[in-house]
């Protein structure tokens, strides 16, 4: 929730909501997200070990992992492309907006896949 919640906020900001928020001030949020990611990786691995033969063969589980990896990739790309400079961009480029929108979709899909794991197969 910390990871996805933060990612969604950055995506929304880039898509034009809360324009008064300076992008540079959101940069510290990446640290929060990485912390949350490592925690999720650790606890997720433990949960996986407890149930590996079932999860390892479950297509939806592999889809979820792919989506999480793609989500992380969008975050790394966003950080590199949008949060690199020292000066505040006045307009968010179309490419950055598309990336933010992709990130929004990928993270929502990852949450969806994760939640459905409890109900499918």
């Amino acid at each position: 929730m910390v990871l996805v919640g933060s990612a969604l906020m950055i995506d929304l900001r880039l898509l034009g909501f809360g324009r008064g928020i300076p992008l540079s001030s959101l940069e510290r949020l990446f640290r929060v997200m990485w912390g949350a990611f490592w925690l999720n990786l650790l606890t997720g691995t433990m949960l996986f070990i407890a149930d590996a033969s079932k999860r390892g063969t479950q297509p939806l589980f592999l889809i979820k992992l792919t989506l999480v990896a793609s989500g992380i990739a969008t975050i790394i790309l966003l950080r590199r492309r949008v949060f690199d400079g020292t000066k505040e961009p006045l307009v968010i480029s179309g490419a950055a907006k598309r990336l933010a929108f992709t990130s929004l979709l990928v993270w929502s899909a990852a949450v969806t896949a994760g939640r459905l794991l409890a109900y499918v197969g």
Partner: protein
Amino acid sequence: MPELANPADLAHVHLLINHFPTIGMILGLGLLLLSFLRKNDHLKKVSLEVLFLIALATMPVYVSGQAAAETLKGQTGVSAEAIIAHNDAALASFIMMEITGFVAWLLLWRMRRIGWPTTGLTYTVLVLSVMTVASVARAANIGGDIRHPEIAGGQYAGLFGQSSGTPLISAAAIKDFVLQHPFVWPTCETLHFLGMSLMFGVLLIVNLRLVGWLRGMSFASVHRLLPFGLMGFGINFITGMFFFIAASEQYTQNVAFHYKVILLILAGVNYLVLTVYDEAWALPASAEAPLSGKLLGASALVLSIGVMYFGRMLPFIGNAF
């Protein structure tokens, strides 16, 4: 984990708090009308705050009512028909109440941004409040028929002898819908988690700003995000109600759910304070919030993490599926 309350205790709680919604709504509406008469925006703000708080206070009333119904089930001198009619009427008024609370909050949020109440939203709140008062009074009246032999003689016939008729919203129909279609529960669970991400994302940013960790932004700029937080809450309220109506026993007798509701109400009060908090509103970028603001932010984070913790623990501490 030790029990907080058994169903009989909750039935008692229901009797204790079941007049809050009716009286609170009348009070909120009264203050709103008075604010028109006196042309006083400050009073209007107070009336909106009251309406929001009453919408929050109605949550435990509805939830404990379900526990009361479970306790009363099968007892003599109780009209089962009246219980069902009361539940349906209460559900309808609960929904009305939450919509009113939501719009009242929206107006408070707008007022904070532009400084005065906008006409459209103000009249929407007024109309909704009138409708909610009527709806909640009807629910309360039918509730009184459940076990007041001096009124109904144990036989439910409705006020003035009229029958309750087909309800607009039927809890039984919602329960059937959720339980008979296998896709509904997982869909609601998924939406519940998406709503949670949205709500918690907003809470995280706004409250980290207050605590001082994301100091680079002015409070006014993050205030802009608050409606997204409430939107997330709205999604979770609706989907959560589907779970509760479909399988109420696994929540009414679940200590994790009791804690969740208590923390949720406290978090709601915190959100209201955050929306109207003067000292924070004036905070420019990089300025440190006063101690009260830091405490407010820290408590919001603790409360919302607590709500998520007990939500996640529903199947582990308690018995929910």
